[in-house]
């Protein structure tokens, strides 16, 4: 339940998509808790459902999708139960989102100044204050010379700069939660590190929570306090980033970390997770990872495991979580 620490609770979220080939069970019983002022990472591969979870929080799912179960509680208020008008007030003002491709969130025919003003005025900020607020926001995202940027058009700026502006726009109404969906995937390594450092500074300065979604474990490691690992539509493990990455409890997380070439010796074989990501139209019964798991037993194929505490700070959805060793 929502304690004083929790800002956002996603409870029991179940999402289906209607497709030509059948019903796609995109999200199954997703449970997520974002604390105040924390940066929570959401990591997963293709088909894990991480992006769709973010969209569900803002009830921005595509036409053929349906949330059949679940609640999204923003400080106790269920966002899924709100009507469009209410949601419009919340989006951008209390919960904001930044996407992977900055050039598609910025309109190419308007200057930066006009786009930022639009954002502020649509959420009823006093017109007199707009210009100074805009400059303040641009400084907040690291621009040392905001006036130069204001008169530019998006295509005149680099990818990193565009993403920073997208962040500035997302922060303009001081949201309590910022969702960043693969914000650095399209950027170079160095720019990526800068943006991640920026996200941390923003959190420190404003106290906002950040939900950082990525398929890149390195990004999560660099920026997140805690991490939630998703596989085939459910959360399989949650915990402090350092602990989860050093000592993963779920076998999928373990497999993922082992498959990274970080410390492996040249010429040696990288350990690979057997099998492949399952179809979500006909997902495996019980634990969706069981066909690929070397530790699966009979109960794993029968009943889906729930997220339970295993180590002091960690939650895992597994009947046979990995031991403390290694």
């Amino acid at each position, binding site marked *: 339940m929502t304690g004083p620490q929790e800002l956002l609770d996603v409870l029991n979220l179940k999402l289906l*998509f209607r*497709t030509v080939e059948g019903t796609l069970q*995109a999200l199954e019983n997703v449970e997520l808790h974002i604390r105040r002022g924390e940066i929570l990472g959401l990591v997963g591969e*293709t*088909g894990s459902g991480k992006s769709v979870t973010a969209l569900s929080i803002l009830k921005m799912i595509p036409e*053929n*999708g349906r949330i059949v179960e679940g609640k999204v509680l923003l400080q106790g208020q269920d966002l899924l139960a709100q009507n469009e008008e209410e949601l419009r007030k919340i989006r951008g003002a209390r919960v904001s989102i930044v996407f992977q491709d900055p050039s598609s969130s910025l309109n190419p025919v308007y200057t930066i100044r006009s786009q930022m003003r639009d954002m502020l005025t649509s959420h009823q900020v006093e017109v007199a204050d707009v210009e100074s607020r805009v400059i303040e926001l641009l400084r907040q995202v690291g621009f040392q010379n905001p006036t130069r940027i204001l008169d530019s058009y998006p295509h005149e700026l680099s990818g990193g700069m565009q993403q920073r502006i997208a962040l500035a726009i997302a922060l303009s109404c001081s949201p309590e939660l910022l969702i960043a969906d693969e914000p650095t995937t399209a950027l170079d390594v160095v720019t990526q590190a800068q943006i991640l450092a920026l996200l941390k500074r923003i959190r420190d300065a404003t106290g906002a929570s950040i939900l950082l979604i990525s398929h890149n474990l390195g990004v999560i490691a660099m920026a997140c306090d805690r991490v939630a690992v998703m596989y085939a*539509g459910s959360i399989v493990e949650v915990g402090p980033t350092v602990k989860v990455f050093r000592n993963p409890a779920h076998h999928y997380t373990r497999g993922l970390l082992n498959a990274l070439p970080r410390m492996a010796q040249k010429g040696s074989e990288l350990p690979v997770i057997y099998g492949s990501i399952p179809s*979500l139209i006909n997902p495996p019964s019980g634990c969706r990872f069981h066909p690929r798991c070397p530790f699966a037993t009979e109960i794993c194929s029968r009943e889906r495991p729930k997220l339970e505490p295993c180590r002091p700070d960690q939650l895992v959805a597994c009947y046979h979580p990995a031991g403390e060793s290694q």
Partner: protein
Amino acid sequence: MCGIAIIAFFVFVAIFAPLLAPFPAEGAGLPNPPNKFLPPSFVHPFGTDYLGRDVLSRVILGSQISLSVAVTVIVLAIIIGTPLGAIAGYFGGKVDDVIMRVTDVFLSFPSLLLAIILLATLGPGLTNAMISLSLTWWPWYTRIMRAQTVSLRERTYVEASKVIGVSDFWILIRHILPNAITPILVQGTMDLSSAILAEAALSFIGLGAQAPSPEWGLMVSTGRIYILNYWWFPTFPGLAIFAIAVAFNLFGDGLREILDPKTRRFVEG
């Protein structure tokens, strides 16, 4: 979907025309003076014309002409225009300039006017009408194909083929053409409808099919003056033109929707 049904009907009729027409000889042109100007009846559902010929038979036989002319014109235009567009788009530079300037010249004429001028030089007749129409139509396909080729030649799989050592000729045939053909096909089916109308127009003004051919445009033209008293024999051919033009239009629309990948379902995590 509707379009396909109507077209299928027409195609069927056209193929089996001589068998279906109740009075095939009259359909082809044999006059039957005693039967002049009979209104629609059970024996002659569409009535008879000024020479006593059964209008229904004439319309049925005319379908053969309209369809075959339309298809020939468009196919010829595509055969001429597509390779030119592919060459212009793929090689660029001077070749592109030359081809596109020629294309522009053709396109700067109002098409029907150009067709008339060409026909005037060649002399009236159905075959010449087909040739002139093809010659006015090909530039459109060159334009479409060139645009497609320009965007496709940058694709990674085209680069991959170059790395393999595939010659330009084969790249055009194997990779560019099949991937560029969709807009051409869609345009082609929509143009079929315009081609029918264009050909009917040319025949209407006397430059296309000549008497006693049961061509629909010609029938409307010769029947014009009788519209008030003997309405049936310009009207039915006119309706036939209308119906088949609409049918091809619907078909083209439907084809575009099926072939456009954006109208397909999808979702990914």
